[in-house]
């Protein structure tokens, strides 16, 4: 085994804040893993699409899930608490997880968003996801009429 467990990486957010992380945790993000494997690691690694607030959260998740001493149920408990955040933060985290190619975080976030959607009306979904309604009144009526059972 190489000494990768002791190796640290420096990640720099879009607003120039630097975070030190263990390489073994960071490589859960395939984007970072690829950089490491291709030996293209600059010091620090600039993450232009992730600001410091979100990066801190990603690192919190990353390090928790990298801990080998935690059981799966303990990690799940952590996940449940982790996603109790304002919905906008969850959306920003999704963008970050996608950019960093962090599958586990993506799955947890997308699952949370999907489950929350189940309780929302169409208008609420638009509001939470910041969607501009580009339907005309008739078009929306027609769309709803295609699946009327969804609104019973």
């Amino acid at each position, binding site marked *: 085994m190489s000494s990768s467990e002791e190796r640290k990486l420096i990640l720099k957010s879009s607003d120039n804040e630097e975070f030190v992380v263990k390489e073994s945790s960071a490589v859960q993000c395939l984007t970072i893993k690829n950089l490491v494997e291709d030996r293209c690691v600059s010091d620090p690694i600039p993450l232009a699409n992730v600001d410091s607030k979100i990066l801190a959260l990603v690192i919190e998740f990353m390090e928790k899930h990298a801990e080998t001493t935690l059981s799966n149920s303990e990690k799940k408990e952590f996940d449940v608490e982790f996603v109790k955040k304002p919905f*906008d933060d969850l*959306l*920003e985290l*999704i*963008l970050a997880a*996608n950019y960093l190619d962090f599958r586990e975080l*993506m*799955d947890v976030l*997308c*699952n949370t*968003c*999907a*489950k929350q*959607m*189940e309780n929302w*009306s*169409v208008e609420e*979904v*638009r509001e939470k*996801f*910041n*969607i*501009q*309604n*580009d*339907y005309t009144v008739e078009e*929306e009526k027609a*769309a*709803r009429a*295609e*699946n*009327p*059972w*969804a*609104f*019973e």
Partner: protein
Amino acid sequence: MKRPLAVAGDSNMNKKLKQEEEEMSKEAEAVLLDDNLLTEVLKHVDDGRTLASAACVSKQWKRTAHDDQLWELICTKHYNRTPLQLRTVVLALGGFRRLYSSYLWPLLKPSSSSSSSPPTVSAWPCLPPAPAAVPTRSKARWGKDEVNLSLSLLSIKYFEKMSFNNRGK
């Protein structure tokens, strides 16, 4: 610059929409999901109603929510390993979205005395009424049996239409 034809115009429209969305997001600091990310989120929806109402949110959402693979995920969630032929057959008969909305949903919804029962159920009077044992409070519980039944109904309807077409010839 020549404007592209309507057929090729879609991708340009998408680009334009995306650009507009990006601009909007910069101004309003709102996070907007692109098609891929939206699909990722919708993959985790396991309730057909949510997916169907997602199609009414906006045109981008309609395009994404109508992806048959998302409906396939919902219809096959009770299969550990989806039978290989299932997708081929269902796609040939009209797709998973049609399977769900026309046949699976009428079986799953609580058997209330509402008058808004879909016509598809009444088209087969020989069938027993929807099982009253389906719990009405929370989500309906369903499994492979309901999927198999709705698949049979889908096939019957398809062949009914086929023979009708042949008779007309």
